[in-house]
């Protein structure tokens, strides 16, 4: 009965495969699953791997994407604490943390329903949190006063808290603001302000440059004059030194001051007459005293 054995084995394999399909299910690494028995949730959420089940209609398996999903809000106009209109858009990473609670909260575990629930939560929390902060908390030159991260944390806490209170089985992994804008009409006003700021910068650049340049030049001139004055003073000092040194030779002249004076006078005359000069003497001055009385026919005598 070899043939029957083969047939039996084949049949058994087929039955096993069929039974496996009916009585087991796989949960993928990225999924979370929950089993209901006659519509009621039984047992804890299933880990990834192979699991046993009773076939339909006894048990039913609900699988959900267990990964972090992105959700980003549309633009929303909100008012800051100082009544400035801001346009914000928030993104969150959320995931189904408790598939049982999720299945209880949303019909058939509809992710679309969950998303819209999340959206409305975000919308209200966005408005609430932004309304608590002035614009200076969103943008600020001083990093200590900037509260960007705190604002995000506040929103996250708020949303997280509401999700937990309502036991949606959803958890926020992270939340952030991804767009911060101003209403269209305001952008124009901002442009005008920016323009006037730029104009101030232009004139400041021009004037500051000139003022600074003048300062630098004046300083340079002052420095140059100081250098020259110092040099002059030094020169005078050096000349004084020279005089002092020369004075050491005075005792030599004191031997006969009369001759010294005479020699000085002679030198002075030599120097004075060195250039083109005109001198007038009368005939008492030597050597012209030789002429005295020698000539009696006055004018018309020209050399």
């Amino acid at each position, binding site marked *: 009965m070899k043939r029957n054995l083969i047939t039996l084995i084949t049949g058994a394999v087929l039955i096993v495969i069929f039974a496996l399909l009916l009585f087991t299910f796989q949960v993928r690494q990225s999924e979370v699953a929950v089993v209901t028995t006659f519509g009621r949730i039984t047992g804890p959420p299933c880990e990834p791997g192979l699991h046993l089940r009773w076939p339909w209609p006894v048990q039913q398996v609900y699988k959900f994407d267990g990964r972090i999903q992105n959700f980003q809000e549309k633009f929303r106009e909100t008012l800051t604490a100082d009544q400035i209109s801001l346009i914000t858009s928030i993104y969150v990473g959320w995931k189904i943390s408790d598939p049982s609670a999720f299945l209880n909260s949303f019909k058939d575990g509809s992710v679309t329903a969950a998303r819209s629930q999340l959206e409305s939560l975000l919308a209200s929390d966005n408005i609430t949190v932004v309304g608590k902060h002035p614009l200076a908390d969103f943008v600020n030159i001083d990093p200590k006063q900037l509260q960007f991260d705190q604002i995000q944390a506040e929103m996250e806490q708020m949303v997280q808290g509401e999700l937990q209170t309502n036991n949606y089985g959803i958890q926020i992994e992270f939340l952030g603001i991804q*767009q911060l804008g101003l209403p269209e009409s305001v952008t124009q006003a901002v442009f005008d302000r920016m323009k006037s700021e730029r104009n101030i910068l232009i004139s400041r650049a021009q004037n500051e440059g000139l003022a600074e340049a003048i300062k630098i030049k004046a300083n340079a001139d002052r420095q140059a004059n100081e250098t020259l004055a110092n040099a002059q003073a030094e020169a005078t000092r050096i000349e004084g030194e020279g005089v002092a040194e020369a004075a050491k030779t005075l005792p030599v002249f004191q031997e006969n001051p009369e001759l010294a004076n005479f020699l000085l006078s002679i030198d002075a005359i030599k120097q004075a007459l060195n*250039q083109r000069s005109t001198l007038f003497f009368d005939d008492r001055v030597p*050597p012209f005293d030789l002429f005295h009385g020698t000539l009696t026919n006055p004018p018309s005598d020209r050399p």
Partner: protein
Amino acid sequence: MSDEHDHHDPAPEPSATPMAPEDAGSQALAEALRSSFAIVKFVMVALVVIFLGSGFFQVGTQEKAIILRFGKTVGQGQAALLGPGLHWSFPYPIDEVVKIPITEIQKISSTIGWFAVTPAQELSGNLPPPGPSLVPGVDGYVITADRNIIHTRATLYYQVDDPIRYVFGFTSASNTIQNALNNALLDTAAQFKVDDVLYSDVAGFQEAVQQRVSDLADGERLGITVKQCNVDSMPPRQLKDVFDQVTAARQNQNKVLDDAHSYENQTTNSAGAQASTIINEARSARARYVQSVQADAKAFSALLPNYKINPGLFRQQELVQVMGQALTNVDFKTYLPTTANGKPIELRLLLNREPPGPKTAPANP
């Protein structure tokens, strides 16, 4: 084996059918059934071979693979990653192979912060004209710390570090990274002044954005490493002219300052040179003076003995010698003798030679 044997033996076997078929038709039918059974068996064996053979798969150099057995990863952490080469897994539905690009650097761009333009428009340089204002949701921008509006965009290059987290942790990890990049741009811009972002601290801004994305990626456990982040910023196109003017004015300011500095250098240097000239001149003047005085003293000492012999004659000699010298230098000489009555002749002179003024001055000898 017995089946196979049957197949090769066309004769009716006594064991299977003890009764000899009288009907040739039913015998033919049995034969046809037998042969078709054989074909089905062959196909089944082939299917099993193909089924098992389909478990082979290849992993490229730029990727890693993870095997999911009944949906659960085989191995943990790095051990779960299969490197390049040929691998085998059980075919579906037992195993599932997930391939992840890993060594290749991936790129993502920010979606906020830039005005509405398509890549094609940007390539052609044919940008749509800017409107008077920015429409939310259409034109992106960020607000700087000093409340200016500017356009900025970032391109992030990253590498997948933890493929299991990257693939099984997020429905779309790249979208999450993009959100983080947008958030980083926004947050960083809110701390920088407009002039820092655009001109004076471009690198600092870029670095801060990259740091922020890295921090967010770590905080959200994205399983990536940020390799590089390029940030590109510009003032709103509506204000391009006035921003350009500021740049020009600043450049001009620098030029003016440069000029002033070069003037400064020149002036102080020339003053320094002049000063050393003055001092050198003074030094040489001192030397000259001292020498001449010393020479005079020497001459004096030499003359003194002569003088002492007859001071009057000595004086006379010297004087006459000097007069002689002086008179050789004089251009023309006029001798005016005393008049008979002993009074000197009166002489009037018109002086207009060297002195600049045309004044005339009478001079009396």
